[in-house]
């Protein structure tokens, strides 16, 4: 009983102290509450001032048809993109060194374009996506896991890349790009690519899979002859670039799969999948290849000295929508 009284007395005193402190604070601040971006600074005489809070976290913009779910985005300026060329990229069709060169040129040209800046409309509580990407490195893996892949084998390919020249980088995105003789469970029947995250080498690694669409042109290729086709009917490189673009947008704006997606689970690029907007036609006077010009291939972007056909992305601004550039 004695102990009970002591505890009650102690609790009462704590309550009184807390309550009086709260009342004091309330009375000091009663002229105006601190707004976002402001903080309270004591003046030393019992009064306080409201001053700009330079440490304030930026607001996450919402209300544009896609939701913020609390997770981080990749804010690197630039975000490194690492390419793992898996399989036989020294063959025919679009499985060639020309495709490798074209895709690497594309990744190096993409950063800070008005197209990539669409992704800068996404952020978290510490800042926004920069809209800048760069080629962080590229290696070849001619088939360490065979030609019939699954997710575990893809993980092994990414892990193997760390001992073959690529850094272990939690702030980059790794792409496993497979030649068209390589299968992956679900590729072509269900998807053209995917992205995910996984702890590899003790690090949170963001990685993606993109297969050569020449394995299933009707499912994953945009057009049989693209703006960068080396020959008529060889549209794999342009198709691969389109899916790679889709995945890097999502891997940057939703790297841990807990940041940006809508009520039905669609991430930004999902909302514009295979939606290209206004297109132009290749002819002899623009940046298309002769094969692209001859076939009248369609394109909707021009940068880095080439024409590209890449899907639109969902902008988290202006009410939301599939757009080709920001602003």
């Amino acid at each position, binding site marked *: 009983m004695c102990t009970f009284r002591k505890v009650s007395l102690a609790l009462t005193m704590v309550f009184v102290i807390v309550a009086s402190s709260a009342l004091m604070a309330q009375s000091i601040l009663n002229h105006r509450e601190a707004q976002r971006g402001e903080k309270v600074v004591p003046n030393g005489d019992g009064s306080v001032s409201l001053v700009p809070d330079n440490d304030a976290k930026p607001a996450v913009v919402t209300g544009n048809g896609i939701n913020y779910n609390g997770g981080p985005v990749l804010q690197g300026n630039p975000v490194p993109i690492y390419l793992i060329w898996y399989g036989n990229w020294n063959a025919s069709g679009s499985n060639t060194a020309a495709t490798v060169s074209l895709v690497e040129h594309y990744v190096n040209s993409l950063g800070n374009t008005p197209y990539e800046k669409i992704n800068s409309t996404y952020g978290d509580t510490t800042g926004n996506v920069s809209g800048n990407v760069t080629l962080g490195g590229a290696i070849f893996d001619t088939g360490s896991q065979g030609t019939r892949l699954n997710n575990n084998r893809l993980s092994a390919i990414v892990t193997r890349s760390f001992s073959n020249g690529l850094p272990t980088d939690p702030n980059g995105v790794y792409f496993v790009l497979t030649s068209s003789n390589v299968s992956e469970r679900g590729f072509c029947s*269900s*998807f053209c*690519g*995917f992205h995910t995250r996984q702890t590899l080498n003790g690090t949170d690694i963001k990685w993606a899979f993109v297969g050569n669409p020449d394995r299933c042109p009707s*499912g*994953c290729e945009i057009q049989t002859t693209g703006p960068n086709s080396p020959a008529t009917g060889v549209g794999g490189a342009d198709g691969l670039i389109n899916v790679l673009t889709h995945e890097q947008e999502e891997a940057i704006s939703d790297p841990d*799969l807990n940041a940006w*997606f809508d009520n039905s689970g669609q991430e930004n690029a999902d909302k514009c*999948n295979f939606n290209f907007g206004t297109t132009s036609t290749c002819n002899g006077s623009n940046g298309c290849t002769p094969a692209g010009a001859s076939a009248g291939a369609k394109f909707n972007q021009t940068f880095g000295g080439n024409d590209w056909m890449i899907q639109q992305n969902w902008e988290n601004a202006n009410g939301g929508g599939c757009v080709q550039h920001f602003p």
Partner: protein
Amino acid sequence: MLARCIPCLLGGVILTWTVAAQEPVVPTLTPTIITATKQVTLFTGLEKQILQAVQKKDKAGLEAMLTEDFEIAMPHADAVAGEDWLDSVLAKDFTLRTFVISQMSVVDLGDYAVVKYERGQQATLKGKAYDGEFFVVDLWKKSGDSWKLANRYVAKIPGVANIKAKARPTGKE
């Protein structure tokens, strides 16, 4: 003294088990988020159109999307002719409240397409809940510039009574 130590020892053992259980043997792969193929995008739209027509009791809309000899096959039951299926889903005592389509894959065979997916639904049949998840295989037939549903094989997935209202599509797991 020993009695006092027993709780500590037990706590230590449990803590060790817990920590050991948290150590991943194989790196865990978070669900993958896919870029759907053109066919998956197309047929997801068509399957949704059918289900929305069921919700609206839109007989004309449904008939326009089915071949004349459309029928449905189910385990341990006779095949249901298209007209009978229409009668059942358009009946007043059936209400399809919500649905979710997931795990779709499409095999493109030119003039035909085999579409496999899982459908979660919340529905009412004769005043009773008819919720659940179904494994569906549809055969679509090309018809001009469009597609018509020619055949359906459907089975209820046992043990799944409720669907997630906001299921995050994972594509493949």
